[in-house]
């Protein structure tokens, strides 16, 4: 799956799991904690949503909020698992 499609579909999951994030205006390079109020619980909801969407699996140690600075980091981790 190409990068653009992974990003598009990841944004759909972000929209579903984090309804307060407006994907039309989201800055995927911004801080997910400071700018989008993602917390230690909501990041896990998002990662579980991405697992289902892309049929990938995150290790238990990858569920930590401090592993991701931005949505770009989250999407990059999906890309890595897809390729």
């Amino acid at each position, binding site marked *: 799956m190409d990068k653009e499609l992974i990003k598009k579909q990841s944004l759909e999951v972000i929209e579903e799991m984090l309804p307060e994030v407006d994907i039309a205006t989201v800055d995927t390079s911004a801080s997910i904690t400071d700018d989008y109020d993602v917390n230690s619980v909501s990041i*896990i909801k998002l990662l*579980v949503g991405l697992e289902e969407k892309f049929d990938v699996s995150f290790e*238990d140690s990858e569920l930590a909020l401090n592993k991701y600075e931005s949505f770009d980091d989250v999407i990059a981790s999906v890309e890595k698992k897809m390729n």
Partner: protein
Amino acid sequence: MANEKILEVAYPGITSWQWHATLFSILGNDENARKWIFSNYIQLRCYTINEIFTGDDMLFTDMMPGSSSLKECPYLIFSLLTKEQVESYCGNIIDFAIKTIDLNGYVYGVFDEAKILCNAEVDYKFPHELFIYGYNIEKEIFYVGDFTFGEHYTYSTVSFSDVERGYEVINAPEDHMFKDDYKGTRGLYVILKNNETTYYDLDITLIKQTLREYLNCEDTKNHFRMMRNRFNDTTFGVDVYDKIIEQIDKQLHADEPDYDIRSLHLVYDHKVLMLERIKYLMANDYLPFSQAIVDEYSTVVENAQTARNLLVRISITEEIERADRFAKYLTDAKETEIKVLTQVLEQLEQN
């Protein structure tokens, strides 16, 4: 009276229980307060209680000091006021809270948060401590800190009328802040910050003693028998890990699985604070700098965090079959922690 006043708060590094989140919110990163904080919060304890909302058995885990820290911390000035005093002095909770904030006092008490969360009348109560640190007269809101309004500890606002309704309906037996020590009454804490002067130096003697008690699972409450001696059957120190492993296994394999993460979150916060303490002791020459110790203890923090996150994951996906991994994360954390803290204690003894 100003239209708005918001007292200083800093988002707390430790959020596991409302009393810790409140104390750390008020004290922030104050250097004097850090000396008291790093001298304390070393011992862990747990015991079984009846959960206040469901009545089910619950493993209550906390650091020491626990909720009494709001009364006893040398960098806070604490006053206790009964509901009768509040009403006699100010007529109602709203005026009382505003006047208290005007005098730089934070307000902390048990409110029915079901009345705050739900606009419609509900036939159940959710008594929980609310931390009030500001007000806006024009908007008729208080600024508050609480776990109830989000997935984690958040600063938020609550209307004057919701605070008033939430306060009025709580009776004495439901005021869990008061019921243990002040039977038959209820009320509020007023807390002022008191960190201008150094009242407490970093206490290496206490740190060594409590580290020893933590590693040997000794009863730290014995030191406080002069003030309090109604003790439950309590587990102390690193044995708390085993109790938590047992409890998680029990709660996940119940007919209706329970995903309560509070003990795991407390343990994670304890490790975060311990790592900060180790770095602080090294930075201030109480311990020789050792990257190996920092790195090794960081794996304890990571294992505690991974165990907590795994339970959050299971609460979302209901994959109970993943539960067998908890024991490994927590046992690894326990073994490494014993090794590293034994080294830390030996080095503190030598200095």
